[in-house]
């Protein structure tokens, strides 16, 4: 026998915005999973470091320029988000130049990372040369692969805004921004690990 008096509660429960909210949740859940993956890579590094064959590698200076480009891209994307958020409906066209700038900076970062790999290879440091170079390539390549996902979404957003055939969903735009900022934070973390541990 139920011991509670149940009342009509439908009106008291706030109706959720549904899929828009789910998109935001999905981005955060994805970020959580990616964080976990890189935590696994980091713990692998810590265990592997105990083997005693650790040989530090000198980082090519261009990696810091790449970092600056990625951090700058977060600023441009935030600028885009604020531009788009002016008014009662999303002003995507106002934001378009800033989204394009973000995409360009993202591509500069990827090209810069490619140059870093070329420079390391020029010094004879390949994926399997030693444990440090192995982790360096694993960290940087995995980060670039995840960043390419962000680049794909930015490209889609730009194409959608420029096409004048409908507008992208705001939640997608916002989700892309959150993901892109996370890529910057993740890279900053990886740079600290790379600079101090490898």
């Amino acid at each position, binding site marked *: 026998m139920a011991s509670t008096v149940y009342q*009509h509660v*439908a009106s008291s429960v706030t109706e959720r915005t549904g899929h828009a*909210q789910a998109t935001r*949740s*999905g981005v955060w859940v994805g970020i959580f999973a990616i964080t976990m993956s890189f935590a696994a890579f980091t*713990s*692998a590094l810590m265990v592997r470091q105990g083997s005693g064959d650790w040989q530090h590698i000198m980082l090519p200076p261009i990696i810091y320029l790449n970092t600056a480009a990625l951090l700058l891209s977060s600023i441009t994307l935030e600028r885009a988000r604020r531009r788009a958020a002016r008014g009662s409906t999303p002003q995507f066209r106002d934001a378009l130049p800033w989204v394009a700038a973000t995409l360009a900076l993202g591509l500069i970062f990827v090209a810069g990372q490619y140059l870093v790999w070329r420079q390391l290879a020029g010094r004879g440091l390949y994926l*399997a040369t030693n444990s440090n170079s*192995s982790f360096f390539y694993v960290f940087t390549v995995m980060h670039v692969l995840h960043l390419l996902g962000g680049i794909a979404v930015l490209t889609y957003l730009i194409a959608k805004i420029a096409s004048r055939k409908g507008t992208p969903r705001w939640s997608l735009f916002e989700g892309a921004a959150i993901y892109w900022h996370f890529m910057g934070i993740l890279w900053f973390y990886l740079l600290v690990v790379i600079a101090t541990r490898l």
Partner: protein
Amino acid sequence: MEEAVQPAHVHAPPEGFISKYVFSLDHKMIGKQYYGLALVSVFMGMVLSWLMRFHLVWPDAKVPVLGSLAPTGAPGGLITPEYYLSLLTMHGTLMVFFVLTNAPFAGFGNYFLPIQIGAEDMAFPRFNMMSFWTTFAGFLVLVLAFFIPDGPPTSGWTAYAPLSAVGKDAGPGLGWGQNLWAISIAIFCVGQLLGSLNFISTTLDLRAKGMTLMRMPICTWAWFITSCIGLLAFAVLLPACLLLLLDRLAGTSFFIPSGLVVSDRLQNHAGGSPLLWQHLFWFFGHPEVYIAILPAVGIVSHVLVTSMRKPLLSAKVLIYSMMSIGFLSWMVWGHHMFVSGMNPFSSLLFSFPTLTITIPATIITLIWLGSLYGANIQITSASLFALGFVSMFVSGGVSGFFLAQPSIDIYLHATYFVVGHFHMVMGVAAIFGILSGTYFWFPKMSGRMMSETLGKLHFWITFVGTYCIFMPFHYLGLVGNVRRYSSFVDDFMAPLMPVHKFISIAAFITGAAQLIFLYNLIHSRFRGKVAPENPWNGTSLEWSIPSPPPWNNFGGKHPVVFHDPYQYGVKGSKGDFVMQDSPEQIVSG
């Protein structure tokens, strides 16, 4: 900045064979696809176990047809010791990944989670479709290992390094066979990550009006908790598989130590840590046990409460216990590594939380037993398998007490005791959960009733047979019968052969009994009695819609939820129950 509420339909109604049955966006079809893949996998895994059991007791006998299917592994039909390990590896991998993860979580979860929370579909239908087809690709890559000259891998479903990492020097199956294994599991991880993401977002954001978190049915809670565990677990196994592949294909040394000589050849690797693989693998591996078992706990609770026609002692405590198990599952991976050579003090650290997990597990069991006490339970195939699950969960769980203690585990670790333990608590128990769910939800999924007579026959043979197979394993382990050996005839274990023969015969009979289930499933799908909307007088939302449900679940309407999920034994109502979406007021009495 907020956008308008999305339209009711998340995708258009499917038109044409391809969009309806193959690349479907409908969570129900995707759920069925997962279930179908699990069904194929479970019969494949079962045949592999038959071959193993056959070879163990008749090591000199030839298996007809096998000689032509696997000319290297079983020349003339005679299984080589290496091929026995291949069978063992593929059995474990198919069962753990493609059955125990696919059916109770991805299969039933996909089909029923959106319906039970009042949603029209998953939050990301395209990701959902990709999730299944990615998993299917992983399955194909794994099965491909049977058809390559190298043969399937021999390193077990746990793929311990350095055996799994050094390549073809280590023996048959450890060249491209092992590569395919690692690629398959990496692909599988991607599929499960997409699935978990969908489950979590859907549960958090697409619940119907009135469907508060604590009003969700217990199985929805189980799928939600499982998806949280899966998200973190597969996010660790994926990097582990990538590092393994790099060791194998790119010459890195993550898992291969210095100076390793295999088949008289010095391996060109240095400084890697085999223990690192074990840490990464079991950090996934132990939570995987709960990925398999928690959905079954949820399904069984859902079935039992419907069959008992009265509420559980405390659904909330059961949900909190499942959460506790999920949380503790992250702190116990080292109990799989007591004999790995890790610091003995670490063993103590892992032993304590392992024993602690028995507390929420016991609470769950006591809630079931306490609720069953005095209940006038309706005996159906579904409720029988649910009761069978409780029995297996307890029988298999009790042996966990022993293995959680390092001093005892060191003796038992490499024996059949462990095989008996995990097959009962994780393998067969979860299978009983899947079968219970199948008999319970088949009418909703197909619009037809299954045969109860065949279902009950299936239950009794399976229940008795399972105990005949796995209980003696504990005895064998206690007397020192090592696992992973392909035969026991020429050594001190020969006196144990009669027990092995008994187990093998029980395995053949129990396995054959599954054909009754298969017949019932297929026959009922086409010839079964037409199912009503609510054949079991259930209260949750899946019973408020037609059987089978329309493509958009609620016919374009938005359900409103008024009650907790299990309002049974309610006096004064038309039946003895009140459905979740019924505006009827329940007066305390």
